[in-house]
């Protein structure tokens, strides 16, 4: 079901790993990969500091910062008051004064109190000061459903941030990318909103809640270099080459899409968008112009969701090549319910139906 992935594929990684020398890798869950990214960056750059609710002594409610305070000290990894707006504001000020803050918002559902600081300040500081001031803050936040979290532990509000110019918006779908993208995000001098699909923290998830959980151990993208490497921001990845149609997805939906295509026996090209802003439109359009058909999958609500932008751009660039309407498979336009979670989650059946419809059009 999973596409063949070449670890040596990423150009920025090649830069860090000397020619011919494969970096030492280990099997890591997404949590471990994220932890490792922060560990590496704390080690490498004394200006990196990490903070947020429960991230210090405890190591985060999802354990992403486990052990980092003990290893790097209390003034580099610490707990904050419960005030997402205050956390981001503090990070902005620190960034202006030379630090490189990485903050955690405990759930993406709780990022809204920080919206003003993110959209009005973090995103615009460089612009409004004509480059005099800027703050290289990275905001990590777990997102997405499928964990019985109900409406306030399941949201993926990526579209709200992708609409705000000045921000980079990222969502990895596997441990390898998670670590490489997080390192790139921390090193980037622009602010990055880094969404972590929590349903993928401990293993890939193809959308079928009845199957036993699997770990990242046996997944190629669970093999992660222990040291420093980058996955470039702003680059989509073709995780499966194919000819019948193109699926655009990110986060958990990459795995659902692969499974749905496999189940239907469709030779789909599956592209993991990875960076939502700025978007790697070339990779997407090259594919859709070739296959002539496109299905977009995301977990967030449909109306004004990120899929709308993907659809609009693909249509703008590939109109003359399109052989079927571009479809979107998304969360419904309702909050994420608790009991009806699996009726809400855009699972294999819904994706498969859309693939079929698109092929048959």
């Amino acid at each position, binding site marked *: 079901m999973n596409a063949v992935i070449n670890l040596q594929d990423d150009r920025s990684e090649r830069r860090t790993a000397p020619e011919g020398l494969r970096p030492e890798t280990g099997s890591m869950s997404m949590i471990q990969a994220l932890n490792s990214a922060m560990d590496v960056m704390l080690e490498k750059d004394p200006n990196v500091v990490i903070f947020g*609710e*429960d991230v*210090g*002594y*405890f*190591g985060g*409610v999802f354990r992403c910062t486990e052990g980092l305070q003990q290893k790097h000290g*209390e*003034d580099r990894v*610490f*707990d*904050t*008051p*419960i*005030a997402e*707006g*205050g956390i981001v504001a503090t990070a902005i000020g620190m960034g202006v004064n030379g630090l490189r803050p990485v903050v955690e918002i405990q759930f993406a*559902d*709780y990022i*809204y*109190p920080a919206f003003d600081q993110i959209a009005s300040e973090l995103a615009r500081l460089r612009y409004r000061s004509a480059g005099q001031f800027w703050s290289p803050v990275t905001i990590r936040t777990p997102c997405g459903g499928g964990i*019985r*979290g*109900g*409406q*306030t*532990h399941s949201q993926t509000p990526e579209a709200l941030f992708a609409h705000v110019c000045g921000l980079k918006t990222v969502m990895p779908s596997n441990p390898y990318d998670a670590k490489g993208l997080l390192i790139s995000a921390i090193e980037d001098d622009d602010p990055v909103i880094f969404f972590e699909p929590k349903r993928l923290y401990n293993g890939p998830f193809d959308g079928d809640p009845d199957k036993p959980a699997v770990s990242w151990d046996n997944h190629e993208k669970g093999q992660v270099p222990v040291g420093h490497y980058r996955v470039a921001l702003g680059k989509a990845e073709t995780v499966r080459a194919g000819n019948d149609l193109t699926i655009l997805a990110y986060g958990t939906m990459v795995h659902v899409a692969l499974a749905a295509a496999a189940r239907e026996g469709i030779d789909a090209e599956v592209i993991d968008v990875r960076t939502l802003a700025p978007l790697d439109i070339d990779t997407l359009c090259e594919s859709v112009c070739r296959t002539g058909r496109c299905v977009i999958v995301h977990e967030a609500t*449909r*109306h004004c969701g990120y899929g709308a932008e993907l659809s609009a751009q693909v249509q703008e660039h590939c109109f003359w090549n399109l052989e079927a309407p571009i479809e979107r498979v998304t969360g*419904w*336009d*309702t*909050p994420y*319910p*608790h*009991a*009806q979670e699996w*009726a*809400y989650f855009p699972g294999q059946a819904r994706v498969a*139906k859309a693939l*079929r*419809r698109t092929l*048959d059009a």
Partner: protein
Amino acid sequence: MASRLHIPTAPYRPGEQPDFSTIKLPKAGELARPDELVAANECSELPFNLLRVLDDNHQATGPWDPQLPAAVLLDGLRYMLLTRLYDERMLRMQRQGKMSFYLKCTGEEAVSVAQCMAVNDGDMLFPTYRQQGLLITRGYPLLDMMCQCLSNAGDKLQGRQLPVMYSSDVHKFFSISGNLGTQFSQAVGWAMAAEYRKTNDIAVAWVGEGTSAEADFHYALTFSSVYRAPVILNVVNNQWAISTHQNVAGGDQNPFAARGIGYGIPGLRVDGNDFLATYAATRWAAQRARTGGGPTLIELYTYRAAPHSTSDDPAKYRPTDEWEHWPLGDPVERLKQHLVALDEWSETDHERMREELEDTVSTIWKEAVSLGTLNEGPHPPDAAMFEHVYKEMPSHLVEQRRQLEGRDERSN
């Protein structure tokens, strides 16, 4: 000399020996009780004290003693015990996989029970997830609580909310939000509307001490101060916010009750494990609010004996025996001892009550699971998911519901 970044921390971590002798505990009964309409600046010492009514011999003492009849105290004891037993049962059921999540209020039962008893039925409650005692005190059916936790066919909230996120308009218990603090400022608006509409109702709101750092805490204090809204603003200081000690919310600087001073809002700091003190403080604030005195900020000083929730493992961040060293004891036990000291209660009575309440919980639980559990169903229908997004369902949701039900014409 450069100053160093100060990072506050918890006083004790796993492996350390908790010693709370540093917590200055004033003697019960010593604090003067000003008139309810006292000017805020004339009682600005209150938040730096700790209001206690029950003394070391389990006697009620001092001017704050609400002098409640034994029958009322026994009601309080019953509600507290029921809350605790309900919590215990639900926790066990969550462990058995019957529900996705649970969250106890063990050690904090006096907060919700005494406070609820001290206000009127028409007063509107804006709780957090740790005030299940309010619903129990107001007589909300345990069956409905359980069905909500089970997200089953009997769930009055149609399976939409995580367990413990109760709501009851009839009981004037506001829908619990997963987003911390948001209800604190809303309560002020509700209270303003009560005045606008010339009713006598007041609003009562709660946040945890950790949540006091959120914007809504400041909004609530500002707006209630400016419009002198009839509202009681409670901060439940149970020492912990998940793994984060109250010191990280500023608790090592000044008591949370003192945050009111700058806004001209009187602050009361109360032994939250003392049923009588908690009742008396709330009563004072309610009377103040109802007679035009505006808001009061109450800090309930207590201890979160339970893990934060079933997703939490406190052994990772605090000594497992910390509660045993907690100097303010167990609210249920303390009220029980008071009733025993009054000769109104005995260990045997207590045992009997516990058994009776356990039976009640058990019986109702059986009824609840007969209506379904999260994993096995039956649940509320999938299509219910599309209701109540708007008052009337707009066409795009009708269409999405059709798609869900497979009745989409376009599907093959």
